[in-house]
């Protein structure tokens, strides 16, 4: 087993390219994942920003939803940004009819909670586990987390709302570090994948 973790980016729809670039910059081998057999080959997975209803539909349609749930249940590290955060929530407060999630984090998310595009914003966000300056938070029609269960750890808040959460090997942010050129949150996730591989090989 080589030292460099292989991390997939779910490439059904969304800002896949930016995540691939950010992961490569954080010293991972990054590759797009659209099929179950591609999912089977990665050590960790990023679910990108995009349209959560579209990503969810395509995941069901192309037989990815169940394999995704199985791998997350088995402890594969996952990181979701924005729509990806919604996909990792055990519960959506206001789902579109039939909108399924992968789950993995005991939290309830509210879609488009910060508003429509005119309300999309940038703000500095201090994230637990990311040293140094706050990260530049880019929030685009972003969700927030209404509440978390006992196993989930809140990593960041903005304006009194939870915007970053970690539960075991699953990480989620309302904002898009992949759009900023600051790869510290991706580095945190790559470390999680590395630690998980070490734990599994013991």
């Amino acid at each position, binding site marked *: 087993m080589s030292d460099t973790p292989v991390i997939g980016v779910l490439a*059904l729809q969304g800002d896949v390219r930016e995540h691939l670039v950010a992961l490569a910059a954080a010293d991972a081998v990054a590759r797009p994942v659209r099929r179950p057999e591609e999912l089977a080959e990665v050590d960790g997975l990023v679910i990108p920003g995009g349209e959560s209803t579209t990503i969810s539909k395509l995941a069901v349609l192309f037989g990815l939803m169940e394999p995704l749930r199985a791998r997350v249940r088995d402890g594969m590290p996952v990181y979701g940004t924005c729509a990806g955060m919604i996909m990792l929530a055990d519960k959506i407060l206001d789902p579109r009819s039939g909108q399924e999630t992968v789950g993995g984090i005991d939290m309830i998310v509210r879609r488009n909670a910060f508003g*429509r*595009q005119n309300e999309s914003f940038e703000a500095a966000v201090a994230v637990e586990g990311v040293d140094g300056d706050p990260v530049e938070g880019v929030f*685009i*029609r972003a969700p927030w987390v209404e509440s978390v269960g006992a196993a989930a750890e809140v990593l960041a808040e903005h304006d009194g709302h939870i915007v970053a959460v970690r539960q075991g090997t699953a990480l989620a942010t309302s904002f898009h570090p992949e759009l900023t050129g600051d790869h510290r949150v991706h580095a945190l996730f790559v470390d999680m994948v590395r630690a998980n591989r070490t734990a599994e090989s013991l």
Partner: protein
Amino acid sequence: MPISENQAPETGTARVKRGMAEQLKGGVIMDVVTPEQAKIAEDAGAVAVMALERVPADIRKDGGVARMSDPDMIEGIIEAVSIPVMAKSRIGHFVEAQVLQSLGVDYIDESEVLTPADEVNHSDKFAFTTPFVCGATNLGEALRRIAEGAAMIRSKGEAGTGNVVEAVRHLRQIKNEIARLRGYDNNELYAAAKELRAPYELVKEVSELGKLPVVLFSAGGVATPADAALMRQLGAEGVFVGSGIFKSGDPAKRAAAIVKATTFYDDPKIIADASRNLGEAMVGINCDTLPEAERYANRGW
């Protein structure tokens, strides 16, 4: 507990505007004229809808002046779906754009499909919080729109024809011009900027990036799953489908099929499956029989 940063958030930044388009990549944006159509589009997996009064095929048929849609109709569509809603303003009609921003649309399309309001100037898109998408037939036109503040570009094609030939021409043109810039050295970029009639800084940026600094979609003539996959294989990051869906025999099925083919644009087996039994496609128009005056792509400069 982590400390929350109570710094004033900043809206309408270039990163937030361009970033919004990044989230649409790999997706299909569908023209809809009613809340019911918007729901069909959302259920089929559209990443956004374009709210308008008439699809381009009907604008062609009806003739006359095509304007911004009725605010009631746009609000009805905003209410009906949770995906982003776009709407069109006339070229240079910045008051229509102000109205669309006040309605809370997520993206404004300053579109050649509507009758231009100004034959010299496009709207100053930096003056808005709402991001803009604009059409282009070549790289110079794309960069002029970006210089005016456009946060997303779509190749124009020829809307309302159901004929993909112009979409292919415009996308190839843009991609070829980008590829050519890629090979230029610094000395050549000044002359290239002059030739493209575009700001030097943007020309240099494209030369370095090997792509536009904003997301590039394709529009104007996509009618089938294979059309959508063709545009993606040619380098479009997503597609707009106008008349192609709701002017066809089975819109829900065709919409879902185009979404599938857009995601798996490089997998002919999936495109084949998506193309089965879709019913009647929209009746197309041969672009070479289209009089110059009826070519929407010539609008905008």
